[in-house]
């Protein structure tokens, strides 16, 4: 009986554990840390982290926070829930490359909402996907 109750409790907590994070951040839908990757093909991917903020007038991003971070301008189209991210980064050879990423914000009520779309870095075009951390 005790084990059954423990199992039920564990199951309940597991379910709640799954459910509760989905109901966490409820403010501006871009605010927070987003993790994912980008690349020209499914097998060529580069890890990507963007921290986005909203100050009441504009959204801003910091790509890959740390010594090699890049500031990004972020634009949200609230009619279509699309996002455009622009930044000046460096490519793998260290050369400057302008990045334009355009994607769709999905499941905006979920804490782990996503943005996915096209990623253009210099002359290279690929895809990206970000999930709110």
């Amino acid at each position, binding site marked *: 009986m005790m084990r059954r109750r423990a199992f*039920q409790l564990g*199951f309940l907590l597991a379910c709640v554990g799954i459910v509760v994070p989905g*109901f966490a951040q*409820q*403010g501006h839908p871009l*605010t927070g840390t987003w993790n994912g990757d980008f690349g020209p093909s499914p097998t060529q991917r580069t890890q990507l982290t963007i921290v986005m903020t*909203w*100050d*009441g007038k504009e959204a801003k991003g910091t790509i890959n926070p740390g010594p090699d971070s890049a500031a990004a301008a972020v634009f949200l189209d609230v009619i279509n829930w699309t996002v455009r991210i622009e930044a000046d980064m460096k490519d793998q050879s260290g050369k400057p490359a302008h990045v334009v990423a355009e994607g769709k914000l999905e499941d*905006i009520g979920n804490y782990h909402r996503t943005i996915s779309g096209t990623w253009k870095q210099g002359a290279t075009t690929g895809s990206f996907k970000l999930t709110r951390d």
Partner: protein
Amino acid sequence: MKYLKLEIMTVSALIALSAAVAMAQRAPSGNYESDKKVKLSGIVTRIDWVNPSAFFTVNVKDATGMISNWAIEIGNPLDLQRDGWKPTALHIGDTVNVEGIPARGPRRQAMATSVVLAKNGSKLFVPSNKPRAKAASQPVPRWPDGHPRLGPAPGKKGYWGTPSSTVLVENTGVAIPMNRDGLLTNITDSDKVAPFQPWAKALYEYRQRTLFKDDPYNRCMPPGGARHFQNPYGFQFIEQPEIGRILLLLGGGDRNWRIIYTDGRPIGHKDELVLTYYGTSVGKWEGDTLVVDTVGFNERFWFTNGGLPHTEALHLTERFTRSDLNTLRYQVTVDDPQAYTRPWTGGWTIQWVPDEEIQEYFCEENAETTFVR
């Protein structure tokens, strides 16, 4: 009746929603398909007289003989008790005929609009629709220093409940049709609700269109901001002038509490505070009105029914005025420059419930039924 009678019919959304509101106290819009109706007959197998909604389960047999177990929500047990109902009104093994609104998705669950005991045709769990007893009109009780008492007079008991409105809209005098959950009758009225920034309006409309499916309150998260004054389970002020604070004990939201400091401390800045559901509050008296400023809210809740967004920049200024023994006027000014184009104000009144205490309420009590089923 041994055979399943299961019909799902499309009916007027308005009629169904009205029925839903009559039977339940938690936001039903996101959980139930208010434009559909289900009829069930079967045998009661379990009775859960728990918060926030009492349930019973019933085994329903279909035409092929297959039995399925349905959960039937019948309303908040405190409200049912107030209406004179007890869990013993129904017994395991009874056959019942149920009409209700089916839950969204694959769950075999419904919110009852009618429960009839098959053996004698008696209708169970019917709301009394009697207004709460109102205390006789009396002047505002006061402290020796002349300030109004926000709680009961010495030797008495009571609490604040029954808000005159359960939605927050800008006080412009324009009527905006919506239900008790804040669901607009016409989505194009969203501009009249509050001076939203474009993103906040888009998110508000998204929440409206998705029938509040992401509402944290429906997952037992605390009703921070102005929302705890909209819930039907009431609240109580505990004034402690000797230590410079007022405690707000909340009947809903898992019997949470809130502290309002009245010792003259500064309100602080959100960047220096731990962000919480109820924020950090300081209060002072302006004549007979307690004015409370609150900052330091997190973004993990909806600060009012209806899904109006806010950010960590939210600053609420609440004004509590006890105009007589029975009436508390609540006015709140919402200042969130990251979500709204300007500060705006709304409010309602709250009625004194004399000679009663806030009753026990724990949202998680039927988490098993709500989450796992």
